[in-house]
């Protein structure tokens, strides 16, 4: 699903200030029936992350935390079964899972008088039943299962999606008889930067030489693509030469501008692969 910048902007426009809930996603699918769900979810997730990055700081001031905590306490005192935390998050336009983290952190701080360690917090978020307060545990759990952009469940889904596409790509490479080294092999050899696959014999795709392939199970928008270019793709180029990036959920057409330089974008596994011919003579 390759979108033009304009198409992408139209979608992104609809995502401003939309909470990351099941319901929002449903509406989005209705609004853009022609786009694939995965693409829409990926775009939604990325846009929402941008929003969170922009507003992150203001939710983490001491005053904000204190006020959220008080609101939470007041809410649960009234009705512990009501979705207090989730509604609070939606109201202040912040991710429920992250709001849950803020409140949990504040709660533990009060209980133990020392700031809890990150690993304790993470562990409790992964398994809210470890949270000493039953009401809070339920509230946190509710936030986590209702957040479709953040939280341990979403992280796991993203990880699984990434893994599945790597497996898919590996199968396709095997099917095409292209020998490669995968990330683990590369890491074992001591490579400092490791694309998903390095082809042991380069191929040409649409006339461009490809030494490595990186699978990205997300939509390639400007922000993420530039970050990837900086942290990964150019680093791969610096070490292994030109290569191919597959954004399985599509990308903004205009971003595919480094082909000549050695970074080719595709939204699927390429069909016209030219391999090096061994002369049989």
């Amino acid at each position, binding site marked *: 699903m390759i979108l033009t910048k304009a198409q992408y902007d139209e979608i992104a426009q609809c995502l401003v200030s939309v909470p990351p809930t*099941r319901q929002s996603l449903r509406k989005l699918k209705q609004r853009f029936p022609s786009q694939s769900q995965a693409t829409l979810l990926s775009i939604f997730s990325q846009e929402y992350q941008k929003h969170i990055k922009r507003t992150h700081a203001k939710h983490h001031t001491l005053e904000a935390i204190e006020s959220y905590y008080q609101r939470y306490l007041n809410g649960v005192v009234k009705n512990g079964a009501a979705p207090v935390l989730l*509604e609070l998050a939606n109201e202040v336009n912040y991710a429920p899972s992250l709001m849950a983290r803020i409140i949990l952190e504040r709660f533990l701080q009060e209980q133990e008088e020392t700031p809890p360690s990150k690993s304790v917090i993470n562990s409790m978020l992964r398994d809210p039943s470890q949270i000493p307060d039953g009401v809070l545990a339920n509230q946190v759990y509710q936030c986590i299962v209702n957040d479709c952009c953040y939280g341990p469940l979403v992280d796991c889904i993203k990880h699984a999606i990434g893994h599945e596409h790597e497996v898919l790509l590996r199968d396709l490479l095997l099917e095409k008889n292209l020998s490669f080294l995968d990330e683990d092999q590369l890491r074992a050899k001591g490579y400092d930067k490791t694309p998903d696959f390095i082809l042991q014999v380069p191929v040409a795709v649409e006339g461009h030489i490809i030494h490595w392939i990186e699978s990205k199970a997300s939509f390639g928008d400007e922000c993420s693509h530039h970050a990837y270019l900086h942290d990964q793709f150019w680093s791969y180029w610096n070490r292994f030469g030109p290569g191919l990036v597959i954004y399985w959920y599509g990308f903004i057409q205009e971003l595919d501008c480094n082909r000549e330089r050695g970074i080719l974008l595709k939204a699927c596994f390429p069909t016209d692969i030219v391999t090096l011919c061994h002369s049989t003579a």
Partner: protein
Amino acid sequence: MAAVLESLLREEVSVAAAVRWIARSTQSSEDEPGEAAALSALGPLRKEFVPFLLNFLREQSSRVLPQGPPTPAKAPGASAALPGRPGGPPRGGRGARSQLFPPTEPPGAAADAPLARRGGRRRGPGPARERGGRGAGGPEEAVGGESLGWAGGRRPRGAGSAGSPSLGLSDPPNLSNLEEFPPVGSVPPGPAGRTKPSRRINPTPVSEERSLSKPKTCFTSPPINCVPSSQPSALNTSLWGLGLAPGCRSLQEEREMLRKERSKQLQQSPTPAYPTPESGSPLPSRTGSLTAEAADPARVSSCQRLKLVALVYSSCIAENLVPNLFLELFFVLQLLTARRTVAAKDDDLEPNPDPLESPLFQSVHDCVFFAVQVLEHQFQVLSYLDKGTLKLLAENERLLCFSPALQGRLRAAYEGSVAKVSLVMPPSAQAVSFQPETDNRANFSSDRAFHTFKKQRDVFYEVLREWEDRHEEPGWDFEKGLGSRIRAMMGQLSAACSHSHFVRLFQKQLLQMCHSPCGAGGAVWGEAPDVLSVLGADKLGRLRRLRERLVAPQSSGGPCPPPTFPGCQGFFKDFILSASSFQFNQHLMDSLSMKIRELDGLALPQHEPGDEDGESDVDWQSERRRFAVVLLSLRLLAKFLGFVAFLPYRGPEPPPTRELQDSILALRSQVPPVLDVLTLLRQGLGARRAVLTVPWLVEFLSFADHIAPLLAYYRSTFVLLLRLHRSLVLSQEHEGGTCFLNKLLLLAVLGWLFQIPTIPEDLFFLEGGQLDASEVDTVASEHGLLWPVLPQDSMPVVDQQLLYACCPYIGELRKLLASWVSGSSGRSGGFVRKITPTTTTSLGAQPPQTAQGLQAQLAQAFFHNQPPSLRRTVEFVAERIGSNCVKHIKATLVADLVRQAESLLQEQLVTQGQEGGDPVQLLEILCSQLCPHGAQALAQGREFCQKKSPEAVRALLPEETPAAVLSSAESIAVGLAIEKACAWLSANITALIRREVKAAVSRTLRAQGPEPAARGERRGCPRACEHHAPLPSHLISEIKDVLSLAVGPRDPEEGVSPERLERLLGQLGQTLRCRQFLCPPAEQQLAKCSVELASLLVADQVPILGPPAQHRLERGQARRLLQALLSLWKEDFQVPVPLQLLLRPRNLGLLADKRPREWDLLLFLLQELVERGLMGRTEIETCLGSVHEAQWPGEFSKELATLFNLFLAEPHMPEPQLRACELVQPNRGTVLAQS
């Protein structure tokens, strides 16, 4: 000096004798007594003759070259000495960068006698004060008060000389132009004048009247760094002012003025005398006064005299008495293409009985005649020029007109020439590939250093890409754009080892990027056969040639351009400057020096081409290619080494005073040279490898600062180079002598070096003069060389492509000729484009050290009479097999040992418990057990080499190789491979085992940590699985959706159908059975989600879609779903399922919210868990116990306690449990019914 010329012109002395006299100082037996007498009287002037002659010719020609193509600048003559020149540099003009060839000290009082005589005769109106500059050194001249005229050799413009033009014999007007555009090397008028640019291009035709008779003795020589050039000079544009001539600021302005003048001229430029068909319509001439004149052999004024001078001149060229062969050729071609003489003057001259009194070139006809005469003598050199130049020469109609014979020879040479010189295109950047052997963590001192370097590599390329994108944008500045980023990056390189890693990357990238594919479509030198060329070699070659035409630079900055950093080299130069890191520079110098030494040691090709068959021809081509690659790499490396090494000493100006200079000299002479170039040069000469060593040495020396050449060490180097230069007489071809093109290359690069501004101007003539005197012997003995030692680099390794690649300025000849054809002024136009010195990636590894002793000698002898390809093959095989052997040992023996280490470690962990003890201690124990096994490596390595080497040699040598040769080659290859492999193994095997075991230990210990269960044996997909199961990610999202619906909040119409739940569990089963896409984290998450789902089912919290009344799941359905889950947990999950979650207060608490509470499903679930062995009774008891301790509402707590007791009391009876529920809950009937 003039006396000598006069003697010649009067035919008192033969040309041959004169040249012998000049070149060798001693009288030869061939000389006639009369000649000898005449010459010996002039003895002291001998070494001044050549500069005088050159200046004389320039002076004479200036009359006819006013509108021609850029006349090279005048250089000061060296004919007269100027002791105590006011305002002059302290000694020998060393500091006066103005002078290409500064005056030498007069050998004695006698030296001036002839000059005085001459001057006395030809008294000009020049004011006496003009001579003031001579000071005490030339009293008689001061008395004479007359200009030396063209005969006087040098006319320094002393303090008083400014302003009034002096005059020469023909009394030309507009001498003052020389003040505005002082000739190269003229001594600046005084301290103030020192800031004036001194060495500059010949007062290009600012006015058509040229100072013919201005009594100054300069010979044309384009100033090194003041050549007007359309190509920006990397040095000159540098912020750092490196390489700028003194006063270059004003020089810039002046250059601008000159440019304007030129463009004015261009507009008035004459139409070509003979517009050739190719030239298109001639430029309209505005004035008509500057049209090119037709040259007519019949109108030559004095053939005899011209012939004689041409002969002397040619002989000097042939004897290498002139500093720069190609500069002279350039000058001669300028004469050939002179457009017209200053018309008004032609008839003013009356025949003069004194041969020196009348101008040599009275008309264009004279110039052309002279030029053609010289060209005839230089035919041999011409015939080696590239095809394009030959074509232009052969098609030159003046040449045809004056010497049909020469034209015929040139045409023949053109037709026979294959020396097509192709132009290069700037290569686009390609990164140095990551090599685990040198780049992985093991090569770094710490994790931090490793990761820092990882980042640096990326920053380096980021900077490089930005430079590629932007360096051509107007207004973009390297330092401003990238400087701070580069310095920040360099600042992170703390450890010394990081510096060496970075330097290695830098140097490799330098070699890689500045390697441009050369030759037409790669045919001349070839390129590494990359994928691209394999994929479409033909088209690619064509495309490349097309691109070349479009992108090749247009000018190389005159026949003597300053050292520059063209193309990508500019990036590296600016990077070094911006980084301004002492550590980096030091490491870079170390690395460059090492690489230079390595490449310089390369053996030259050993045999003649074409002696046998086609095979050797192919070999020869590749030998040549290899040579070119090495030579160009060396030049590039040496250029950067010179740049960095002399960087701290370079400045725009030489030291202002003699005292300062002496103290600097004293200081600097303490410092050892960065690379022992003198020794390398001696070795190169001794080993007859001058053709390899000298070109890079010249690149290195071209960056010398003002002081360096004065140091004894470098002076000796220069003296040696001068001797070499003198010895390279092109016409001498003797058995085993240096091949012509090799010589031509050496002459071209040396000639270029002698024109570099920082090289003392007196060096060529002064040292040259001394060379053949007493010093020669000392120099020779000092260098352990016998004179004359010819570096008999007799292999024709240089071709025109290489010549032009090393010396792009030779292309100026072609440009000059082309501009004549096109009628342009030829300032920067023309079609000759720059051939950037290029280089290629370095060669493979050096041949391995051969075994010592007799065996080695025998092996050497064996190769001696074999084709070189055999030797290369054997060395190559040995090198590769040796290296493969090490890899093989790593993969087999070492890997086995690592496996042993792992199992030993496991045992250790079992016996010592999970902690396993101190890792360091563990490692020591393991290593002490395993390292002794390393000894096997040598035996295994030997075995490997013995098996593999012969196979490889056999595969690589021709089938027809005689059996004896083959078996010898095999055994030598085996020996070399074993030597290489065993040397490495015996030195490194223990360390290698340690390293690998250490890595394995830390791996095992890490894996020991968090997820021991995950390491259990895992089943794969069932056979014939087509991997069509739903993706794990999809299932997690699905279950998450259900969970979120169950937990709420939800819209009233939201819910899940029982069928959806059943389908979901069915899919979960499929996914868990097809393991294709499943990764442990996903499976763990699925396990957890399924437990959560079970809790919700038990608590009846799942909102069911259906008729409005029915929002609850039927008990039977719920049980079926729980059964399905139980079976998934039991059969399909391969990760531990966190079943204890079911009994956590939070999950049990879900029941608390329901009214009426129903415990039957929970009891059922617990029972089944025990039944299926998923949880132990005691485990459940523990969990329930802790649940009981939690805070619950009183009623709930009571029910919980009852359930607990029931579960404990009636472990094995499924039915009674239901009854037990009945006790707690009234509606037992329904429960029973549903079950």
